[in-house]
């Protein structure tokens, strides 16, 4: 029956209300049109979760999806996507995770798990190849993520199968944060990998779904095994030549934190403080205890943590993700061992490190400005560098207690609840918190555009170009010379990557190319780290992904087709958000929007300091809409664009609902 390679072609439908479980075949034409993972998921979300469905209604779906490269030998093919309508933003909510769950899910024989309805009692879904069952989770409810994972592994004898030693159970689970509907709640993959943004964990909590656990022994069939091995090895060797390879291989996402450096420089100008020093390299040496990798990843950029001395002695875990460091810098905490503690607590409570970080920085700024005091916080002094306070607030956020209850709703709802003008500090785009240090601004004009036009709200992972200009990357060998050459080679303009805040319309095309690459990664189930997103010179690019897809699936894919598919999914997601009411104004950085809506500049922000003006932003935004085929007046996809991309049904739907107006033709 199964003639497919790469894909499994099967979808698992689980209705939590009725307990009905069924398996369906995925339409063959979807594979070419939407490729997989986030492509399939966004399509299903568009078709089945309309504006009439509220994030917490039983009709909302949780869609877990993997791509054709997930679980294969293709470089870093470990990713799994969790998609739902986000309770934080009310629009598309999707988040992506590494770890082993994606691979195990694929090996159990499913590309998609679609969960609907709402269970009366806590449950978890147990999948062992074709055997799928809903199991009671009363004994798991209230446990943290680590305890949940271990209990499930114990129940199902994770380390033994047919007498073999084999740790083969992948779990996705929520912690107390998800159970208590915190807007910082993420879904955890195993112990230390997270699908973070969009408060998707809260949807799980609302549906009374504690976990999904899977053991897969079917494997992934590969069309051309020998060629795949050769390609994987070649791409790996080629990556070595990239100037940013070494730092990535050594520090993982922390290699990026130099970037946040310049970002927090902006921030500190903004809040009037002084610049932080980065956590010293030595600090990491103290807490790192060997490397850790996601399934099938040659980079293995994660680390084991083991704090050997000091206040947090004995803290063991995995991490730390770059954002932990970014926020720790903003908290003005300098000790690496605190990073490990913060990281672990987030993982155990099932909270997104950056959601928590943003909320804490928000509270700190409020405290500093005298907007809140001990009476508001229940006696906690939220001063900079107060590690104990941060840890207490984190627990409060997860359990929605004390001041943490308000912080848990950061950004929009928290500011509304607290009042007192706290909204001026609560930066967000489309309801998704912006990194507080930057207040909606990236390191360059084009980076800022990408962050704010992204479909899941403020987001660097689905919509930004990461080739920074003349900044810290030079330290790693990403010199001006290399950047000019790259700009000339790709876009015929040596200045493409050399004009951080000036309007250069060539950069918009570069940005769109990068967005397509990021979408491709999510659609095929591959990590973004070995691609040109992270390694701009020798990383994996369109043609490499097309080749890998060909060798894995046996179907011929061209780079052009993939770019079209990526544009299709990107446009579909914008159409989804448009249907939910998102318009051009929602694509502006926080402080610019503030200025446009209130007719006065943001009280804490003077644009001159970061060289970003409304005029400049409008220029690149208009160009971006033009290239994407969107109507610049309203900022939504044109009918012709939708039809060109093979989405006439979407165009028809938007027209019927009045989202697409006549002049839009």
């Amino acid at each position, binding site marked *: 029956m199964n003639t497919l390679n790469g894909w499994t072609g099967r979808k698992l439908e689980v209705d939590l209300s009725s307990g009905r479980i069924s398996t369906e075949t995925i339409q063959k034409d979807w594979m070419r049109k939407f490729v997989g993972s986030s492509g399939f998921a966004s399509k299903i979300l568009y078709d089945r979760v309309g504006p009439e469905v509220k994030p917490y209604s039983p009709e909302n779906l949780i869609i877990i999806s993997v791509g054709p490269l997930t679980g294969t030998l293709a470089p870093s093919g470990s990713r799994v996507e969790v998609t739902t309508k986000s309770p934080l933003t009310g629009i598309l909510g999707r988040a992506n995770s590494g770890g082993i769950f994606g*691979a195990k899910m694929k090996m159990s024989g499913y590309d998609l798990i679609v969960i609907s309805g709402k269970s009366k009692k806590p449950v978890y879904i147990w999948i062992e190849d074709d055997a799928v069952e809903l199991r009671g989770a009363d004994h798991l409810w209230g446990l943290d993520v680590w305890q949940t994972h271990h209990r499930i592994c114990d129940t199902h004898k994770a*380390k033994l199968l047919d007498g073999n030693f084999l740790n083969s159970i992948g779990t996705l689970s929520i912690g107390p944060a998800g159970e208590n509907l915190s807007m910082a709640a993420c879904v955890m993959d195993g112990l230390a990998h997270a699908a973070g943004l969009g408060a998707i964990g809260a949807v799980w909590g609302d549906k009374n779904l504690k976990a999904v656990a899977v053991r897969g022994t079917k494997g992934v069939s590969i069309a051309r095994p020998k060629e795949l091995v050769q390609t994987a090895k070649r791409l790996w060797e080629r990556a070595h030549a990239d100037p940013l390879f070494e730092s990535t291989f050594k520090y993982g996402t922390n290699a990026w934190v130099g970037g946040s450096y310049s970002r927090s420089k902006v921030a500190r100008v903004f809040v009037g403080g002084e610049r932080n020093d980065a956590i010293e390299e030595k600090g990491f040496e103290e807490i790192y205890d060997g490397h850790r990798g996601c399934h099938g990843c040659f980079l293995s950029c994660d680390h084991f943590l083991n704090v050997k001395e000091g206040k947090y002695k004995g803290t063991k875990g995995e991490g730390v993700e770059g954002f932990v460091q970014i926020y720790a810098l903003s908290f003005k905490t300098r000790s690496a061992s605190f990073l490990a503690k913060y990281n672990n607590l987030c993982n155990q409570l099932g909270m997104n490190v950056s959601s928590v970080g943003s909320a804490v920085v928000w509270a700190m700024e409020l405290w500093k400005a005298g907007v809140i005091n001990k009476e508001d916080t229940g006696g906690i002094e939220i001063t900079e560098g107060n590690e104990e306070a941060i840890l207490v607030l984190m627990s409060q956020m997860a359990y929605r207690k004390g001041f943490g209850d308000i912080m848990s709703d950061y950004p929009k709802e928290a500011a509304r609840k607290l009042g007192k003008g706290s909204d001026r500090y609560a930066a967000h785009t489309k309801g998704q918190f912006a990194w507080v240090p930057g207040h909606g601004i990236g390191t360059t004009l084009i980076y800022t555009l990408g962050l704010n036009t992204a479909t899941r709200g403020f987001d660097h992972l689905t919509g930004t170009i990461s080739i920074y200009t003349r900044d810290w990357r030079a330290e790693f060998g990403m010199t001006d010379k290399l950047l000019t050459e790259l700009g000339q080679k790709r876009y015929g303009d040596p200045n493409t990557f050399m004009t951080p805040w000036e309007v250069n319309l060539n950069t918009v095309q570069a940005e769109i190319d990068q967005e397509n690459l990021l979408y491709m990664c999510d659609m095929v189930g591959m990590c973004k780290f070995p691609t040109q997103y992270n390694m701009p010179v020798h990383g994996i690019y369109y043609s490499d992904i097309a080749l890998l897809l060909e060798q894995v699936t046996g179907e011929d894919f061209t780079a052009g087709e993939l770019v079209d598919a990526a544009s299709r999914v990107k446009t579909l997601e914008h159409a989804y958000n448009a249907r939910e009411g998102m318009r051009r104004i929602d694509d502006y950085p926080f402080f610019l929007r503030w200025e446009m809506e209130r007719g006065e500049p943001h009280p804490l922000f003077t644009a001159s300091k970061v060289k970003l003006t409304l005029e400049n932003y409008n220029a690149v935004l208009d160009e971006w809409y033009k290239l994407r085929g969107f109507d610049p007046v309203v900022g939504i996809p044109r009918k012709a664009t939708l039809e060109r991309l093979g989405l006439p049904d979407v165009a028809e739907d938007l027209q019927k609902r009045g989202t697409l107006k006549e002049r839009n033709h």
Partner: protein
Amino acid sequence: MIVKRVQKYLVVDYQKCTGCRLCALACSLEKTGTCNPARARIRVADWEEKGFIVPIVCQDCAEPICMNACKEKAIIRDVETGAITIDRSRCTNCKICMQVCPFGGPSFDPAAREVVLCDHCSGNPACTDVCTRGALRYTAVDDEEQRTLRLNNMAEMRLTFFKLSRSQEH
């Protein structure tokens, strides 16, 4: 037993293992044409909470317990590579070798329904080729350092398995 060329071993440096399972993917791809760690000859045992990961593969013992335990005499030493392998014409898949091996060397392929054992891919192991963090090497154990590493690892693995197999019985 006479081995025609210098005996090479799969030397496991488990402290460098990241648990990425590339070895298992490459192995299953080589042997079965699919990416399926459940069918691989090398497996990754992962005690993530302890920060402890061990690639499990046949250690090619000088005096293999499995060889003595096998009533069918299906466990043999390959004359070309010196690897301990299974003679498929004799094996009855009774799993006694799996029971007695202290290192978890032989394993059961759930799809083919047979016991499998690493055979060094006839001298070009697929797994060592893809191990990017240097946890696996295919090398002749001729210097003191290599020998110590190998012996230490064997001892550690054995101790760990003992502890773990105890901790599973609850």
